[in-house]
Each structure stands twice: as C-alpha cells, then as structure tokens.
C-alpha cells in the first residue's frame, strides 16, 4: 500500500487542522516534504487549505520550493478552478492536481476537461465526507460548506468524468487521531475501480492495520501521525508488510 505524507498548508506554514478547525503550525512545506521523502514516503500531497476559502490563487512559491529535489510524486491542491491554474501548478512542479470545491460546488465538468488535457492519472478528486444518517454528504472548504451531494453518488460521478484517483477524507475524523472512518473508506473502495487514498484519523499503527485489513484502500495519506512524530513512514510500512504479506 502506498504511503502518502499529506501537508495541509496555510502559506507559508504546514498546519495541522484539528477537526478541520483551529490550526497548529508544524513547519515549512519544503523541510517537511524532504523529511518524509527521507523516511521513505511514496508520495507527498500538498493541500493549500485556505486558497479556496479566501477565493484567491494558490501561493506558488512554497510549491516550487517543496517540489525541487523531491524525486517522488507530488500532488497539489487548493482553490483549483480552471485549466490555466492547473497548468501553472504543473509548471511549478506538481505531478498531479487535487480538485474539490470548484468541481463539487460549481462545475463538475472541470474534471472532464482536466482529464482530457492532462490525462486521468494526474487528476485527483478530494472528497470531504461527513456522516449523515446511514450515508455521507460531500463538503468543501475544510468541512465548512455542504453540497447536498451524497458521497457515493459523487464518487461514481467523478470516476465517470475521468478522475484518476480519489482522496477520501472524513470531516468527522480528521485531525482527531481516533482511527479512520472505515465504513466510509470500504464503501467507496467497493464502489469505484480507480485507486482510493484513505485519509483522516490515523492515531496509531493499530488504526492503520485495521484500515488495511477491513477496507483495503490503495493508499494511505498521513498527516498528524507523522507531524507529531508519533510514528514515521518506515514504521508504517513495516507494520503493513508484516500484517499483510499479499501487499
């Protein structure tokens, strides 16, 4: 299973949103990207978590700095609204772009157009899911804005539109280190054929082993667990190899 280090950035710092609210500074993007690369991370996701909220362009400087000499894939998201913006991200060193708010709340055809121009494999759609009865609803802007769309409907739709990968985050679990929303990840994973990246809630290696066993996502995005040095990428890989020889 791929292990991805996720940097939530409020330029110029990587921050750790707690429950998608309240932010703690944890370092600079470039320095943390380098640290997780050296630990053995398979990829780095860089999410500008305020670009969409403030309706401004993403800040490119820290992206270029982090991308340089990072010889693993680097995905970037935050406030992406059009192909020009994506193109600029690719030229700043992003290998994939992550889309949420604009496609969810304004125009889902952004996904089709992006896949056609840049190839599906470089388009990641981020889903911020919040439990709602027996189902989950899609949110945007760090769990602030509802969309009225159900996660399973939206996951199927974005796959049809050409998304190459899904980043599944849970508004309820994010930053709380209480374990993953396993039902959410499992349901999405069983529904789509594109890779599913599970995020939100890892607080211990046990949480990760349980997720791997019960939901079998293609990849895992870690933030708090790494930022607070509760564990590191190599320890996560070791425990996953030990518990699931088939991976």
């Amino acid at each position, binding site marked *: 299973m791929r292990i991805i280090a996720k940097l939530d950035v409020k330029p110029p710092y990587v921050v750790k949103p707690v429950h998608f609210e309240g932010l703690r500074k944890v370092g600079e993007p470039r320095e943390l990207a380098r640290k997780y690369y050296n630990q053995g991370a398979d990829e780095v996701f860089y999410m500008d978590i305020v670009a969409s909220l403030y309706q401004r362009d993403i800040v490119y400087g820290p992206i270029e700095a982090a*991308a340089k000499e990072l010889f693993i894939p680097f995905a970037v998201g935050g406030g992406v609204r059009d192909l020009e913006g994506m193109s600029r991200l690719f030229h700043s060193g992003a*290998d994939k772009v992550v889309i949420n708010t604009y496609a969810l709340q304004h125009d889902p055809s952004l996904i089709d157009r992006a896949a056609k*121009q*840049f190839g599906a*494999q470089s388009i990641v759609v981020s889903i911020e899911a919040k439990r709602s009865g027996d189902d989950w609803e899609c949110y945007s802007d760090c769990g602030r804005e509802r969309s009225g769309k159900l996660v399973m409907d939206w996951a199927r739709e974005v796959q049809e539109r050409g998304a190459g990968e899904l980043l599944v985050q849970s508004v309820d679990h994010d930053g709380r280190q209480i374990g993953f929303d396993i039902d959410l990840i499992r349901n999405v994973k069983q529904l789509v054929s594109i890779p599913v990246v599970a995020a939100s809630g890892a607080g211990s290696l046990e949480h990760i082993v349980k997720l791997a066993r019960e939901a079998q996502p*293609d990849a895992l995005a870690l933030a708090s667990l790494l930022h607070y040095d509760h564990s590191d990428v190599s320890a996560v890989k070791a425990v996953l190899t030990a518990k699931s020889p088939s991976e």
Partner: protein
Amino acid sequence: MARPVGLIDFGSMGNIESIRNALESAGADVRIIRNARDFESVERFVLPGVGSFPEVMRRIHSSGLEEPIRDATRSCPTLGICLGMQILATVGYEFGETVGLGLIDGEVRLMQCKSSVPHIGFASIQQVCESPLFSGIDETEEFYFMHSYEFVNYTDVAALSSHGQHKFVAAVSRGKLHGVQFHPEKSRDTGIKLLRNFVEL
C-alpha cells in the same frame, strides 16, 4: 562536464520541471526544445510523459515537431517516458483512436485487469533483454508507475512489470530508441541511476 540533453516541451500539458530536475541530478545539461530549430544543439532527447495521447499528438503536429523527432530517433539516443513512450506506438486508444509516431510497432490500450486502474505506485520490473538503461539496477529495485494505458508490443520489449496478476510492458528498446512506462524522475535514487545511464549512453 554536464552532457546536453534535449527535453521536448509539448506546451502547457503538465509537469516537465520534475524531469528537468531529475536529469540535472543525473548529470545532464537540459535544453528545452519547442521547435525544429532547437534540435540542432543536442545529441540526445527525452520525450516527457504528460498529457493525453490525442492532445500530445495534436501538439506535435501543430508545432511541426514530428519530422525532427523522427530524424532525432534515427541518430540520437532517445528516451520516452510514460506517455512519451506510448506515442512511439503505431496507434493509441485514449479518448478514441489516434495515430502515433509509429516508431515502435504496437498499440496503446486501456489496462484490463481486476486491480485499480490507473495503476499508481512503486513496482519492480523484470528485464527481458540486456539494456544499457538498466545497468547497475537489480530486479528488487522499484520504479514509480502512474498510468491507465499500456503499450501492447510483441517485438521490442525490454522489461515487464505486473499490476496485481496483470503483466504489462514496462520498457521497450529498439536501437537507440528507448521507452519506459514508469517515471524515472519520480523513482528516487533508482530513477536517477537510470537517467544517468541514459545520459551516458
């Protein structure tokens, strides 16, 4: 001394900065190539892997790069990466049927397998013939893949890889022309080693 390597820029299709950075780490003096004239100064070329098959072919035609690329592959070491490898094929089926450069026999088809597609992640490769590209790289080392389509070829396979149970072509070689399905620029030190092999060909 750094060796000159031409990196072909198809226009705003995706990230070529990663390849530029990695080639520089591998000892290359990277020159960006945007038109026929730019080919004059360099003796080896990289076709980057960004965009979609029809879009890249459209841009190659509109920028008059097709003939220079053909000429270059006859006389100079050339490396196609991911989509840059796929467009070497006769035909591709991403978003409909598109004629490729036809430099290596074969077609590019959607991967048909039980595992998730796109195939994304690190995987080892199995070399099926001696290639200078893989010199000093053993079969436990891994490369990063990120693709939905695969190069179906029966004549010039240099290496294979697997995604779950599904085997596919990971590298092709024909004379001085090489193509890799994976991204050496995103494959840590192993990828840099491969790029250095190419730069020193």
